């Protein structure tokens, strides 16, 4: 730092997981902080989408917003016409402050469910009662790692360090993925599976493990429920059908089952991509059966890994400030309304009693990231007032009336909990906020203050508290747990362990209804799902839209929070990638400009042919604007995934069940 300006960014070499080595995105954050495109004062747009923004003061902006909310309240006797969208941001806990503010003014319409990982989370909950939380550093004790639908070379370079260390000692890495990823390129074996067919492969592997007596019968008898009915179900799985379904040869499938079954301590890393299908939850359920049948649970270096939230120990007290008393006789409206995320546009347009009239969007860029974004864009037209809190004029902000500028993590204090490793990070403020930018929690306090100024008693959210005070309040949890030393550790070192167990289910105690691993889940059955891990039909293309569109995350961004496109990056969002087979079928060559279309809409984009892209698949990376204001989610499907309700109230999104046609233009 020099003269209040940050000059460089470095990792903390003492950190047990990162060892101070930043990933590319970590290196790029200074560019976000000082980006010339960043907006540093509140603005009002005169005519949505016109780009005719005028600078306004914070006081003007807050007055406009609070008057809007209070006007709705007068007209409808409730704040339910206000749709509040608040997603993950950078997962710092104080990023949810605005949700806390809205909880404290009454009842609103929230986006229900999440876009990311919920189908897979539910699958783990049904099988184990909990998400797998083993410390990923323990993976070095495995001798064979199956990376199933994940790409840590892009998403977790620190994990790759462990994996490569393993590989150097002769241990094996096996990658199963429809796309030949940077991780696949470093693996010992790679299996290119057809998208959406992972469940069929897992079931076939389970069948072979049973057939060849590679299972741990004693473990199964002691710790699981429903094995015999699962075994019966597997009888109905025809291995020749699995070959056709997965695109893998019988030899490949046998090979995978043997590699898993005969390994001394195999482990599986499940990615998030394979649950973004309408059969995604069942896919993960099927994959969880492999460690269960072989008894590879609760042991060092074995088992299965996914995201988990165990490190997040904070109570987030700021979410629970009570709203003022509601008008009497309005008991029916005394709860929030949740609009299912996978078809948000439709839900907003269909909402009556009361309708949706206003939107407040923070930590989110729905017009870029939600599926079927054109429909949502249509729904925006019905809204009287749209507010976004962001750092840049995003696709969503372009369609907003009011823009509130927020801070980067350099400019505010926060607590961040990993959903992969067990560490919590303390985010100190490095510099004062640039321009007039304010942190989410400061915006929440200011909104509360303004609400109460206009209508006393209309908001229960604190008005005069600082970020530091909110954090102190969260940190009390360590005192309550009898581990106050962690507070010191967080503040002096910058990190501490969120929890101490290194191996999930070491005690073989499971928090399922039966206290066992549930191969057969009565609860799933009650929720309208198959009780057993069954394969649900993989969606197929139709004649008009013969290609499956896969839209994974780009290397250089988190969803649409794209960091400046790096210098000579091949895998960027400006291209649609196809394989040589598709190129022949559609007579396309690299550089051709095409229309990619389906019933949801169309985008225009340039083609690149990569020999690694499988037939019948087209790949476009999520994120930055492709052509004008349209992003790839113009095309993505509003189909829900099969699960998600148990953990997040609503089903997830089957992004990868999107089918498109391609046509050359010009």
């Amino acid at each position, binding site marked *: 730092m020099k003269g209040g300006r940050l000059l460089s960014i470095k990792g903390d070499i003492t950190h047990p997981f990162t060892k101070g080595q930043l990933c*590319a995105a970590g290196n790029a954050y200074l560019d976000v902080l000082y980006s010339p495109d960043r907006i540093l004062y509140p603005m009002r747009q005169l005519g949505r989408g016109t780009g005719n923004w005028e600078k306004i003061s914070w006081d003007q902006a807050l007055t406009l917003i609070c008057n809007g909310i209070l006007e709705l309240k007068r007209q409808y006797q409730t704040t339910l016409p206000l749709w509040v969208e608040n997603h993950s941001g950078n997962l710092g806990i104080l990023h949810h402050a605005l949700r806390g503010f809205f909880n404290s003014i009454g009842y609103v319409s929230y986006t229900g469910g999440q876009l990311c990982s919920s189908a897979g989370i539910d699958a783990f909950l049904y099988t184990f009662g909990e998400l797998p939380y083993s410390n990923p550093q323990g993976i070095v004790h495995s001798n064979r790692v199956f990376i199933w639908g994940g790409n840590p*070379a*892009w998403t977790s370079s620190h994990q790759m360090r462990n994996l490569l260390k393993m590989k150097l000692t002769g241990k094996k890495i096996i990658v199963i993925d429809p796309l*030949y990823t940077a991780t696949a390129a470093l693996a010992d074996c790679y299996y290119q599976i057809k998208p959406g067919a992972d469940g069929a492969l897992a079931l076939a592997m389970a069948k072979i493990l049973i057939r060849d007596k590679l299972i741990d019968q004693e473990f199964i008898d002691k710790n699981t429920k429903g094995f015999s009915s699962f075994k019966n179900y597997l009888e109905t799985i025809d291995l020749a059908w699995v070959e056709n379904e997965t695109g893998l040869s019988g030899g490949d499938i046998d090979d995978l089952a043997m590699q898993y079954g005969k390994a001394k301590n195999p482990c599986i890393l499940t990615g998030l991509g394979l649950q973004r299908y309408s059969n995604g939850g069942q896919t993960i359920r099927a994959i969880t059966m492999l460690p269960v049948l072989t008894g590879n649970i609760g042991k060092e270096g074995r088992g299965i890994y996914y995201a988990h939230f165990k490190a997040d120990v904070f109570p987030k007290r700021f979410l629970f400030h009570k709203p003022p008393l509601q008008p009497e006789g309005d008991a029916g409206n005394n709860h929030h309304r949740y609009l299912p995320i996978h078809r948000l546009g439709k839900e907003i347009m269909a909402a009556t009693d009361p309708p949706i009239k206003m939107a407040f969007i923070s930590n989110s860029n729905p017009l870029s990231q939600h599926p079927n974004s054109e429909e949502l864009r249509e729904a925006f037209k019905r809204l009287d007032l749209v507010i976004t809190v962001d750092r840049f004029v995003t696709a969503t902000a372009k369609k907003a009336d009011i823009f509130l500028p927020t801070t980067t993590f350099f400019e505010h204090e926060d607590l961040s909990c990993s959903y992969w490793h067990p560490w919590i990070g303390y985010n100190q403020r490095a510099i004062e906020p640039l321009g007039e930018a304010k942190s989410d929690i400061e915006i929440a306090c200011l909104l509360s203050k303004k609400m109460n100024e206009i209508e006393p008693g209309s908001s229960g959210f604190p008005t005069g508290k600082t970020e530091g005070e909110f954090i102190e309040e969260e940190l009390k949890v360590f005192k309550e747990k009898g581990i106050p030393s962690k507070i010191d550790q967080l503040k002096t070192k910058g990190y501490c362990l969120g929890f101490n167990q290194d191996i999930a289910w070491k005690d073989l105690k499971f928090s399922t209804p039966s206290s066992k691993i549930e191969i057969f889940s009565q609860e799933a059955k009650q929720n309208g799902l198959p009780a057993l891990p069954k394969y649900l039909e993989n969606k197929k293309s139709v004649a008009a839209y013969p290609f499956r569109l896969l839209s994974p995350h780009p290397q250089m961004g988190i969803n649409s929070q794209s960091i400046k496109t790096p210098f000579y990056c091949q895998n960027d969002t400006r291209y649609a990638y196809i394989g040589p087979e598709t190129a022949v079928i559609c007579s396309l060559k690299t550089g051709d400009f095409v229309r990619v279309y389906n019933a949801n809409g169309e985008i225009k984009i340039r083609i690149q042919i990569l020999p690694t892209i499988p037939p019948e698949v087209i790949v476009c990376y999520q994120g930055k604007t492709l052509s004008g204001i349209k992003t790839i989610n113009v095309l993505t499907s509003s189909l829900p995934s099969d699960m998600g309700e148990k953990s997040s109230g609503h089903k997830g999104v089957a992004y990868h069940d999107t089918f498109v046609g391609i046509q050359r233009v010009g």
Partner: protein
Amino acid sequence: MEQRLGFVVDLAKCLGCRSCEWACYNNHSWETPFRYLREFYQQDKGKLIYLKYSYGCNHCEEPECIKACPEKSYYKKQNGIVLHDITKCSGCGDCIRACPFGAPQYNSSLGIVDKCDLCVSRLEQDLDPYCVEICPVNAIKVVDFKKIREENFSKECVGFTSIELTRPAIRFKKMDSQRQILIIKDKEAR
């Protein structure tokens, strides 16, 4: 004995994560980084070879940039490092056209060219260059080529032909032959 410094790249480790690009970019005030990721695909008898690795200036023994520059702004140090004096640079771009490795980078706002100096000032303080320091998997290293056993290293790999004319100071760590390349099985055979 004079040193001969250059980069060693471990192909079995490089993730293609671009951290080195960013570290280079963040620490040199230039429009672009001096080193960047290159990706290569090669069909070989129904198998597909895909390799990715990053490099910038290879500090050649017989650098084309030195020969090409009309301003004589390039020079070579005793330890092998090729340096560029930007105060002499006219921005003519002759070096960019001459370099077989795409090392010199034009800065459009300054109108001149610069390139990787192997972080020579850091080396003098016994520190690694920024790109080496940042690499999460230690896939790149600066070594003295006079001290390595050449038989453990290769002068070329997919996408990188050793140019005997310039003799670049870059070596690729040899991999166990079975794991040398990564394979997508022949799609035709399916």
